[in-house]
């Protein structure tokens, strides 16, 4: 059974975000490691980083606007029943850590309004509601430190802002690697990637009926 779980705005946002993240990680790495990596000049890397950064901010606004105005926002609704959430998370973690190797079925079957398994739901909420906004904010402060000097000083100085920005960058590097790998764990290696391009995910009918 094919389910249309990735609407067009979400797909546009996702792939723009993916390309933007890669460019931000590469240009950010170049900025931070001049001498170790010299693919482009420091100044070019800064220009690319600034430009792509603002594209990603606009893209984030597109994502936010879509979900605020769409009933698909239910995908991001938190599971308020903590017991249910933790049991679901444990099952999912067990599946990835052990069950998948034995051939166990994936404990989670997506639906149109619940496309994230409990682990995904938790991680995406942390990323989209906390880490991404923090990265946008610290990035804007670092973009023009003089203009935002009052806010920079309020948070303890440029080094504090930069350290937070780099810590989130490190978290994103880790996330991107794991995210891409988990994307290969569909019923085929490319199933999730195709779904994110076409919008349609193949779902087991029996599992969906349950």
């Amino acid at each position: 059974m094919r389910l249309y779980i990735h609407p067009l705005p979400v797909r546009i946002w996702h792939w723009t975000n993916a390309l933007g993240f890669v460019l931000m990680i590469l240009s950010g790495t170049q900025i931070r490691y001049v001498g170790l990596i010299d693919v482009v000049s420091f100044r070019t890397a800064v220009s690319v980083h600034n430009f792509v950064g603002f594209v990603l901010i606009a893209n984030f606004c597109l994502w936010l606007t879509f979900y605020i105005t769409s009933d698909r926002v239910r995908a991001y609704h938190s599971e308020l029943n903590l017991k249910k959430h933790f049991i679901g998370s444990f099952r999912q973690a067990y599946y990835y850590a052990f069950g998948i190797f034995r051939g166990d079925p994936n404990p989670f079957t997506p639906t149109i309004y619940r496309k994230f398994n409990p682990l995904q739901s938790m991680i995406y909420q942390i990323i989209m509601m906390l880490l991404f906004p923090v990265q946008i904010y610290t990035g804007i402060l670092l973009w023009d430190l003089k203009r935002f000097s009052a806010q920079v000083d309020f948070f303890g100085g440029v080094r504090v802002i930069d350290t937070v920005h780099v810590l989130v960058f490190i978290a994103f590097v880790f996330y991107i690697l794991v995210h891409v790998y988990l994307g290969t764990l569909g019923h085929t290696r490319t199933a999730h990637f195709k779904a994110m391009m076409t919008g349609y995910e193949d779902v087991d009918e029996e599992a969906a009926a349950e």
Partner: protein
Amino acid sequence: MEPKLDCNSASRKILPRFIETSFAIAAIAAALILVPVPAFAAEPAPSAADQNCLGCHGTAGMEKKLADGSTLKLHVPADGYAKSVHGPNGCTSCHADVDPAKHPPEKNEIASARSFATSMTQVCRTCHTDKFEQWDTSIHGALARNGNPAAPICTDCHNPHAIIKNAATQVDQVPCKNCHAEIYTAYLGSMHAKSRLGSKDSYAPICSGCHTAHSVKPIAAGAFGQGPEAACFGCHAGVLEAHQKWLPNAELHFEVVSCPACHVPGAQRRVDLMLIDSKGKARGTEQVGVPLFEASTGSDSKGIDAQTLWNVMQTLNRSGIAGKTLLRGRLDVINGPQAHQMADKSKALSDCGTCHRAGSQAFQSVTISLVGPDGRRVGYGANADVLNSAFSVDSVSGFYAIGGTRIKLLDILLVLAILGGGGIAVGHVFLGWMFKRFGLYHPHDGHGHPPAGGGDASKPAA
């Protein structure tokens, strides 16, 4: 045929010629009287009273041994004095205490040449009040008040008996070179000196152009824009806008990087971390307590390390000193002579990678400074790791150069993140392969999720 001249005709001819000659002489005389001609100014000469003084003091080599063993030069070159701006004033305008009838005094009351010159500054003050007050609040004045015998007072820079107007505007006449010889030599190699020496119309600065003549302030005491950079901007108007065209965060660079740090390309650089209060005013040694730093720096030539600096900052902010104590960082050249070797702008550093890279020379020398009682900077050596240690996030929160002073711990975390993220993927694939390899993979669902070892789950495991 020759004309015949008779007496009458002869007399008629002679009379007009006499009259013509007389008129010509009269006209020349009148012209000499009435038409102004450049006058040759008379050499200024001392007055009769001054001649009386110069009768003795005009003798070359005249001097007096003082009680402390120093020598007071009493010779006043008559020519120089007469030509000086003080010449018309007369000797007694400054030396009013000298009674010619009782001069020289029988008893030598001058303790030393220095004390005499110091007492005479009050005489200078009577006419040059504004200049004296500027000097009094300057670093030179502060040094003099603190009893520094080398601190310049009026007569150290100005010879009162031979002072002429605008002498200090000539590169080779500046009195500053007497004490600041090394800086003066460095300045002579700068594009400012070359411009000034190359053209009499050049407005390139000499010493007083940047430091002012009398209100010379120590660099450390002023907030940004009040030091020598303010003088740079005074001539180089629009320089911020020019930098903003190519330099990201140009205004911030102007705040934390001195002009010579980039415009003296061969200079050694140093980061100076100055202790300031929350309003940006430099902390004085009397507020902070120097022993605290001296105890921390110890005899180790590497200076204070990152953890000790953090401890010191914690102590300072708990010690009851009013307001928060912070460190304001500034990249500068390592010493005064290098600061005066400004090169042509085509040679200025514009490669960001010069500073924004790990191990950059710019961040290998670090000092922590306060302002001493005389307004001068008091610096203490620090280990370069104070700029890239995790402790610096808190202790040196206001100074950071991307890449150049990055925190090593974050580099380690990034490597761990890459190894961790990649390791999870590789390890997961490997485990999947192992489960298949040993026959432990038995798909339960018909639609099949693949084993982590790869391949389609719908296909039976090997």
